[in-house]
């Protein structure tokens, strides 16, 4: 059975609620980044780079049994941590659920600052790109 995006997000919120300060939060994100399953090298192409990030972020999406599996990588470790969190919520989900997913949990885990347009780390671009993949695959399903 698929765990819903909302349940995964609540899980992440629980995990982050254990941290007392930014340092623990960031250390956790850095560790998540280190654990991120690496994207296959053949997909680390320029066309898979998400624009709008100061660091490079590659995302690859594949459809398996009506669910999308995302893999990603970045040359910056904090960015890797952020994309790891996003992938954890969106990967192995149905395209429709990804399209409709709310991403307000980012705010709740204390990463609101990464949503600001000036941040240039492209969290907004990352969410947009993952949802775009979902839209593309949803069209295929129809």
């Amino acid at each position, binding site marked *: 059975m698929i765990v819903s995006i909302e349940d995964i997000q609540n899980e992440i919120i629980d995990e982050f609620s254990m941290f007392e300060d930014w340092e623990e939060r960031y250390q956790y994100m850095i560790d998540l980044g280190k654990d991120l399953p690496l994207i296959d090298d053949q997909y680390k192409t320029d066309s898979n780079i998400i624009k709008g990030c*100061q660091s490079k972020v590659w995302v690859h999406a594949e459809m398996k049994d009506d669910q999308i599996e995302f893999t990603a990588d970045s*040359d910056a*470790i*904090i*960015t890797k941590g952020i994309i790891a969190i996003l992938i954890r919520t969106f990967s192995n989900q149905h395209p429709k659920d990804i399209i409709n997913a709310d991403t307000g949990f980012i705010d709740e885990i204390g990463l609101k600052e990464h949503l600001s347009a000036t941040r*240039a*780390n492209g969290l907004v671009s990352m969410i947009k790109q993952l949802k775009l993949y979902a839209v593309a695959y949803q069209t295929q399903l129809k």
Partner: protein
Amino acid sequence: MPLLSGLEINAMFNVNDIRKDFPILSRKVNGKPLVYLDNAATSQTPQQVIDVIVDYYSNYNANIHRGVHTLSQEATDLYEQARLKVQAHFNAKFSHEIILTSGTTDSINLVANGFSALLKKGDEIIVSALEHHSNIVPWQMLCDRTGAILKVIPMNEAGELVMDIYDSLLSEKTKLVFTNHISNALGTINPIEYIIEKAHGVGAAVLIDGAQSCPHIKPDVQALDVDFYVASAHKMCGPTGVGMLYGKEEWLKKLPPYQGGGEMIAEVSFEKTTYADLPHKFEAGTPNIAGGIVFGAAIDYMNAIGFDAIAAYENELLDYATKQLLEIEGLKIYGTSKNKTSVISFNLEGVHPYDVGTILDKLGVAVRTGHHCAQPIMEFYKIPGTIRASFAFYNTKEEVDVLVASVKKAKMMLS
């Protein structure tokens, strides 16, 4: 006139006193005292300068150069006084050689646009490898329009321009040479005296981008014999959205107007328009009146502190910070010229600059990370970017210590 009389400035250089002039320096960021080390991007504004903004809008706000009423005349006087201050600061021969623009980028585009009318196919433009994107793109566009060819003075590992190659690039085809006075990404001070002299030897004009030099150095455009010199107010304790272009009178007369509009005309009919004299020929529309006046106040503020004192103090900070940072294992500084200003571009081995910048921000330290709008330099070093700490005269050694401790902390967290 009472405006600007509020400029009570510390004559003696005492950094603790000077810091009191800057309200923003006492604010906190992420719960930590702000350590502002992004001065090469924009400088902070002292209360004396902020007061002039408030005073202008409280007492003098009017459109200038046309109104017969008192406010308009007073505002015009203040604006033209500011032009005289810019003229005096840069030691231009005439005040009409000072064009007030929206900033360095605007000034560069004004000149580039003007040269469209003067260049022909096969003419050559030389730019330096140390340029900011704003000093590369307008010339590429100019070359596209005219068929002129862009040549580049290369840089060496230390981040210095290679003058031998510059010499070999010059010929009678060279019509323009453009370089920054100081590199924004690395802090290198370029040998502009030599560059100008050699360019004049083949009859080429020279434009120097002073955006990064003006916070540290007081350029004398007549002594330099430079044809064009440009700068932005916001890098020198002034407001954003205003800057200057100095052009030798003979060159400004040769260049056609940049933008059409009010203020820049003498007579208009549907058959023919004649243009206003310098400097108004290049100042179409209502200018940034408050910005221009406040630019003058910022120049007053910096001169009252004194550029010799500023340079001496900043060099001390640079030496101190360089030594402290180099003690961190795996830290590499990019731009190691002996001639540089208080800018340190660096990376930690195996760590992305963006990660370091993010952690530094959490610790209240403001630096710039990325390619600093100078991608060709980053390509030269084969790096995605750097962390850039840039110091101003209001920074302290204690702040350098916070930077060093924060970089160490970032290193610990990230590796």
